[in-house]
């Protein structure tokens, strides 16, 4: 159906990942003893970029019907 869902998923999680990274970098660890925003920001960013890579590859090879 027209739109590859991996585009919005990839874009959204990359964006949220970057937001968490910024928050983690500026806000520090807060009350916790680990900087969860920084760590999770990286995880989300990696997930988002992987989805985007999948979407790019999917555009080159149309899925079998």
């Amino acid at each position, binding site marked *: *159906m027209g739109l590859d869902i991996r585009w919005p998923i990839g874009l959204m999680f990359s964006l949220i990942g970057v937001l968490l990274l910024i928050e983690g970098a500026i806000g520090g660890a807060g009350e916790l003893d680990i900087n969860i925003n920084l760590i*999770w920001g990286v995880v989300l960013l990696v997930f988002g970029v992987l989805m985007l890579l999948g979407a790019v590859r999917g555009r080159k090879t149309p899925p079998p019907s």
Partner: protein
Amino acid sequence: MQPIHLAWVDYTILIAYVAFVVGIGWTLARYMKTSSDFLTSGRSIPTWVTGLAFMAANLGALELVGMAASGAKYGIAQAHFYWIGAIPAMVFLAVFMMPFYYGSKARSVPEYLKMRFNEPVRALNALSFAVMTVFASGISMDALARLLTNLLPWKLGTHILGMNFGSYDIYLWICSGVVLIYVLKGGLTSAIYTEVLQFFMIVLGFAPVVYLGLRDAGGWHSVKNALQGVATNPAAFNLQPAGVHYAPDAWTSVWKPVLDGPAANPLGVDWFAVVFGLGFVLSFGYWCTNFLVVQRAMAARNMTAARNTPLIAAVPKMLFPLLVILPGMIAIALASMPNKNYRIPPPIVSEANYDKAVDAVKNAAPSDTAAVKAVGNALGLKVDAGKVTKLIADNAANKLSDAQIHDGLYNSIAENDYNSVILSLLKKYCPPGLLGLALTALLASFMSGMAGNVTAFNTIWTYDLYQAYLMPNKSDAHYFWMGKFITVVGILLSIGAAYFASMYNNAMDIIQLVFGFVNAPIFGTLLLGMFWKRATGIGAFLGLFGGIAGSTVFHALTTTTGNVDAAGHAVNVWKGGYLGVVAKFPSEMAQNFWLAIFAFAVCFLVTVFVSLATRRTKTDEQLKGLVYSLTPKTVDHNQPLWQRPPVFGTVLIIACIILNIYFW
């Protein structure tokens, strides 16, 4: 629950999510050309997408909130809903039932019932299902609007056309408006896509919270140890009435407490009710017949994809207790650790009532027993007499500040609001940023709860009621238009249902009750329809009708042990027994499971006997593709081994058995 402070980053994540779902709707709008594109996605969605949507469609926020609540209340035994309930049902749907749903080219479950039986069976199922979807989506939206009202700091209010709109109304209408936009633009595809988005939001938003909670509690072993203390004295945490004690493993093992009988586990159920009531009737009834989830599989692009949809869904489903039940178990473990300063949140008490209670504490003389009652009355809740007496004594000895008394009162309330467990954990562990992500995940699942139900509702209405009975033989453009029009109507009806749910305290009980009456018997009808060619239309109709009527009567004559007064009458009539109490069950869950067993048995037996007494109206040729014995076996040999549904399904069942044994 006190308002949670949200930072700019949290609002940004929330707004970004809304922008993305609206954007998805907008992008998909240009592909919506026929009623089939809009209502059934033109059967063109990739398998992993339908699979995740299949799982996420059921993963409403009520499930998230409710499973965490049950994790605290019942412990790991709640995983029965997954490991004996959902997974076997999903495998059965994929391997045995999907070939008929998908292969018959029916566009909905009621349409399959028409092909297999006759119009009255379809009408009965379509009507009851349509009503259910409206209420289900209303419950979701009511819960969402309530959550936002409690969570967000703004007190909104406006007048439109002379009517007073408060915060609740405004959140309800705005969120429904967002859902309307993306469903109206992109139809079922929009709903499926946002369900997949929501799936990832929930996994990626809740995983860090579970991790932080588990880490704070000292790891799984420490949680397990703490839960042994909880199980041996659940009354200390207001989980059970005083005097109830369980074996130490009642919160941490899946089967042992259930095998020891209803009195040995907090669910109050026996193994037969679990295996047959929950596992067979309720779970198969839900996963194999509910059009909301089956519709996702029907949108797949071919037969193999349709059959693999529930199987792909089963993989994350099997692991979801980690994300949804474990947090509740962590919460109750934390509550039992004195140094963690955490309790299961009590029901919300207004600040005015807290002030009254603080005054009551200040004015009380030490060891004044009447004061405990006065404090309880001021709060409007049950309080722990020992804790209140101690608070009063402490205050008399050395004057406490109002804030200290307030905290003392909070901790002495002897009632738990289990539905706040998940929010209290988010509040405890999430820094800004992560908090926005987790809350957005919650919000997303509420909204997709509405979207999923509305997309099922509009299909049933357009194809099974409007096209079938009101306006047959119109052009596709007409039905396309009707599909869109009824989407708007569906949203408006849902808003009405949300107001209904918000107005009556036991609206939720009533609605759940009706679901139970309607859901349990239909599995009997479909099972016989698909696997017994002798089942006739009139048999199916009377069986289905008898099942619904039978469960209503069953409910009217039974109740729970706790709901009976000294004279033997039911106290709360919504919990059953209003026509007299013939049988009593140890818990509401046990009553539900047995009701399901009874409804299924009535439907099954009536269908069998009436079918044997009536003449078949459909020939073998007409039933080809609709009944197991008359349909050529699906050939999977051209598929790679791991993509064949029976192979994939067997692997899943083995994994599920291993989980059951590991947590035995």
